[in-house]
């Protein structure tokens, strides 16, 4: 301490009369003071101009620029407003052009005035009635309404199960009553879809004022539907497993059963996603130890499985149900055959034998008839496969109504696109919040690239939605969502957290500390003496 303060005290001691007994140092020449100052300034300038930038450069982390504003606008729901165009073609048997035009005009007016389908832009066009429905006609319109004026049957309407066609027989009613009837039938066909779309949007910033209010009952139903279904993927792997509690049955005619009962459904669904199918047989399948197991019910003479056991029924530790290799989730379908002495086995409260495990698959218990065969034939499997098909539609997220499968698929495409856009937007928002909050994490270029791709795909998807190209919109929305997730879960962003700034400083303290102390003290001393001299001179 004494050493360091020496220069500062020196000028005052020279004139101190009380220290006369000591020799005082000669006064320092201004040139020497000047040199010392130059030296100190030179050292400091090296530290500031070279050392500091070098330190910052070597310890800095790479943060790419993200389009935060665009990301936030997506997250806040400002970038897009959901509106679904629907083109409906009215084909009538009416030969008269004028009355056909009148019907179309009347319906158009009705849709414009009514507020029953606020989420849709409905465009109605006239068309020619032809008895057969060709597949290529499907591309013209989202819904074709066939009005059969010549039929003598009473007023009725029905949807064809495999085509987007609504057959209407207006009966003997007049033209205005007929158009009223057609209007209500169209609204009925789209009402469920609209409800589910507005439910999807209700929790997001995209919620539109046009959305319709839902009752609590409808809400729980729609919630259950969305939690059950898998997230949308372009590829699903279906695994059908036969688990026998004993050594029989050890084979099943699954190939034939699949061709007969499941392939038609899969062909329809393959417009939206692709499916791979594999099957396996496993014998001596035991229950998992975590469940109570079946109880014998004396009254009915049946074995009962408690409802609480259903969630733990699948013995994940022992049953070989590992997911398939390749992109896409695996949907498991388990057929469980109990041992002879535990048969028939059913669920206690309901007496049912099948249940669905949300986002995992379906389970079914098969109680064989008395003849215990070593193989299950395709006929035995009919009921089983139909139940599996039903579970599959729920698991891929196909809406339960309207009765036409084609319309349900179109409906699902719109719902899935909407939910993918919503989830990609919220991921973008989360990423932007994350980068603002954690300033020390690195943002590699790949993240910026993924974000750019996400935004481009989102814009494309929205454009497709606005123009009614729903399949393209779905494909773009899926890529957008994948890219957004990829950006958010980028593994190299996490690594930096384990090597924080404190560690870098701590390692170099033996260098920085001893170097900094003389530098700082010399600078302080010089500044003090400068100030003192200034005070003295004034």
């Amino acid at each position, binding site marked *: *301490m*004494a*050493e360091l*303060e*020496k*220069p500062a*005290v*020196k000028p005052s*001691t*020279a004139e*101190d009369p009380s*220290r006369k007994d*000591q*020799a*005082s*140092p*000669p006064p*320092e020449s201004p040139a*020497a003071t000047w040199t*010392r100052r130059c*030296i*100190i300034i030179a*050292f400091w300038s090296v530290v500031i101009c070279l050392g500091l930038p070098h330190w910052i450069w070597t310890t800095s982390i790479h943060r790419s620029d993200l389009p935060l504003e665009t990301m936030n606008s997506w997250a806040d729901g400002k970038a897009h407003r959901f509106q679904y165009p629907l083109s409906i073609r009215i084909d009538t048997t009416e030969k008269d052009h004028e009355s056909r035009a009148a019907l179309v005009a009347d319906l158009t007016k009705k849709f414009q005035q009514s507020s029953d389908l606020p989420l849709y832009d409905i465009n109605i066009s006239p068309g020619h009635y032809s008895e057969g429905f060709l597949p290529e006609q499907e591309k013209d319109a989202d819904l074709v309404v066939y009005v059969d004026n010549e039929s003598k049957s009473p007023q009725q309407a029905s949807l064809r199960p495999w085509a987007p066609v609504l057959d209407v027989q207006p009966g003997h009613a007049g033209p205005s009553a007929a158009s009223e009837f057609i209007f209500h039938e169209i609204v009925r066909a789209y009402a469920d879809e609209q409800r589910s779309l507005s439910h999807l949007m209700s929790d997001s910033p995209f919620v539109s004022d046009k959305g319709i209010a839902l009752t609590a009952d409808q809400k729980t139903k729609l919630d259950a539907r969305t939690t059950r279904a898998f997230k949308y993927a372009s590829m699903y792997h279906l*695994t059908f497993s036969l688990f026998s509690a*004993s*050594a*029989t049955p*050890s*084979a099943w005619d*699954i*190939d034939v059963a699949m061709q007969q009962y499941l392939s038609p459904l899969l062909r329809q669904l393959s417009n939206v996603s692709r499916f*791979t*199918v*594999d*099957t*396996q*047989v*496993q*014998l*001596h399948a*035991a229950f998992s130890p975590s469940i109570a197991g079946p109880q014998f019910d004396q009254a009915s003479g049946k074995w009962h499985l408690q409802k609480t056991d259903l969630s733990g029924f699948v013995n994940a530790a*022992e049953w*070989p149900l*590992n997911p*398939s*290799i*390749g992109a896409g989730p695996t949907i498991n379908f388990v057929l469980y055959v109990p041992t002879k002495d535990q048969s028939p086995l059913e669920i206690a409260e309901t007496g049912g034998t099948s249940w669905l495990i949300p986002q995992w698959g379906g389970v079914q218990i098969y109680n064989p008839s008395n003849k215990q065969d*070593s193989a299950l034939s395709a006929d035995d499997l009919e009921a089983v496969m139909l139940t599996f098909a039903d579970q599959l539609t729920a698991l891929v997220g196909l809406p339960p109504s309207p009765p036409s499968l084609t319309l349900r698929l179109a409906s699902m495409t719109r719902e899935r696109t909407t939910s993918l856009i919503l989830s990609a937007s919220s991921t973008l928002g989360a990423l932007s919040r994350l980068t603002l909050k954690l300033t020390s994490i690195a943002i590699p270029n790949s993240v910026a690239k993924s974000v750019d791709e996400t935004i481009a795909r989102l814009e494309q998807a929205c454009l497709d939605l606005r123009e009614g190209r729903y399949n393209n919109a779905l494909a773009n929305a899926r890529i957008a969502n994948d890219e957004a997730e990829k950006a958010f879960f980028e593994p190299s962003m996490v690594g930096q957290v384990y090597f924080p700034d404190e560690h870098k400083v701590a*390692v*170099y303290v*033996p*260098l*920085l*500390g*001893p*170097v900094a*102390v*003389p*530098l700082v003290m*010399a600078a302080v001393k010089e500044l003090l003496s400068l100030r003192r001299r200034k005070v003295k001179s004034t």
Partner: protein
Amino acid sequence: MKLQPLFALPATLLPVVFAAADPHAAYTEHLDLHPLPDGHLYAGFNFTATTSHAAYEAQHFRYFPRSLAQILQHTRTAELHLRFAFGRWDDESWGARPRGGRREGGTGAELWAWVDGEEDHPEVLEERWGGLVNSLSGLFCASLNFIDGTRTTRPVLSFEPEGTHKHGNEAQLLHGTLPHEVVCTENLTPFLKLLPCQGKAGISSLLDGHKVFDANWQTMAIDVRPLCNAKGEDCALEIQQTVDMVLDVERSMRPSHDPIPRPLPIEQIECDTSKEYHSDDTCYPQAPSGAPGWSLRKVFGQPINGNCDLESADATPNYPITLHVPADHPVELLSSASLPGKEEKMNLGSTIIHYPLPPHPHTFDISLPPHPQPPEPRNPPLLHATRHLTGHGLDPPILTTTLSNPSLSKNLTLTYLDTLPWFLRPYIHTLRLQRLSRACGDSAELQQLFYTPARDRERGSKIELLLHLPAGCTAQLSYGVEKAVLRYAEYPPDANRGFDVAGGIIKILPDSLLDEQVNNDSKREAASYLRTPPLLLPLPTPDFSMPYNVIILTSTVLALGFGSVFNLVVRRFVLVEEVPAAGLPTRLRDAVRALKLRLSSLGGRSGVEGKAGRVAGGTTVAG
């Protein structure tokens, strides 16, 4: 040549598989029990499942495990061989290796496979191989994913496809070993999960991790191969799962509630009375002689839990268990529901008994009482091989393999494969075959050499030799190696243990292969294999805290230098007398003096000495 019933067994099983070939879906299992000298028991489990190629392509799996099949399909693997092994087969006292060594791996994990891919596109092949090792690593809970480019080789001579591969479908052979892998229960559980009965019924119910991994020698194998008829049509895919082990009978029969080995009470120990120091209070225990008594329940902890007979329509009874005993050795059948075994007399006074298994809920057990006569060893081995690393400190190490042909009449032609990690660089010019016995003559020689040099951090080196070893010859194959220095981050955890170097793989070519006329697929005899134990290679290991020490020491030296130079440049130098009294010490001294004065005025005494002392001490101020 003597009859080798054990080697013939897999061959006799195959026709059975194809006889039941409805659409190829078949499953058979077999257990071979063979008591060995020194109170050991060999147990060989074999499970064979087949599926037709059509069902495999359509992904309908019945007996073939789905998880493994999907991996094979995804990585386009045509034939797969996976091994997990530990322990040492004592061929001097036990005899020849089971199954000709073909279902055996080097210590640790070993994997070789024929993967579809063209020679021109190595990156596609590499990607598929990478996918295969990673998926298998996940399936078997093993570190197989560490089989990367540095551990993968492409042997030329040592392996041949066991299955029939379609022509024009060029599958490439890739081979990788992990000698460091510790085989344990977590590898056995997925192995059992691949079986149709999953260890719940049939002979697989004996496979309990505690017993299997308590064995002296154990190897677990999975072999998948395509099988086609002569025209190359009507193909099937076969998976063979094999567990071979040698148990110490005394050790395995320790009760499970008290597994700690304790010395026997003195009354139960048999003393060697021939020792001169033998007396009432001194006992040298006699080496156990004869065969100990055992039963399946005592050795494996449980009896066999019924059969895993899946072809119930098949009327012909299966005999999945084979027991080799000396002819005069009584065997007791402990299960009520099972049929008696079928006895088959062999020459040399031994008997082979084939047992059927009772249906599932019934159990099966056999019991053998102790016998004074020890069991005969198996047939003598074809070849003895040992390998070691010489050299210490700075000496260049030499890798030496001693090969000896014990036969008096049979000449051997064999291939030898050594895969070395890249940090062990062989000097090929030092490679020589030294003839140690006179029987070698001039005909013991290297005939072919395939060598792939290592590339640092990219690829290991591979040495593959074809050599001839006449009857009775003992020869020493040696070459010098150089140890590379690794980078700081390349050391594994626990680097001081050393690095494992995979054992050499020796393939003994069958006689028929040498004879050009008999070289026809149907009559071809399979080659037998032998693997030398792995080596532990000590490499100089650095002190892993060194980088931080270096940073800190360098920083301190730099800071010291900087401080003195800076002070020299900035300070002003004056004479000692010219140094002014520093402000703070003076003030402190004044304060202390004032305090002392006050104290002395309070105490009334001894103020003067203290004052003088202070002043004397205060005058030394350094410059």
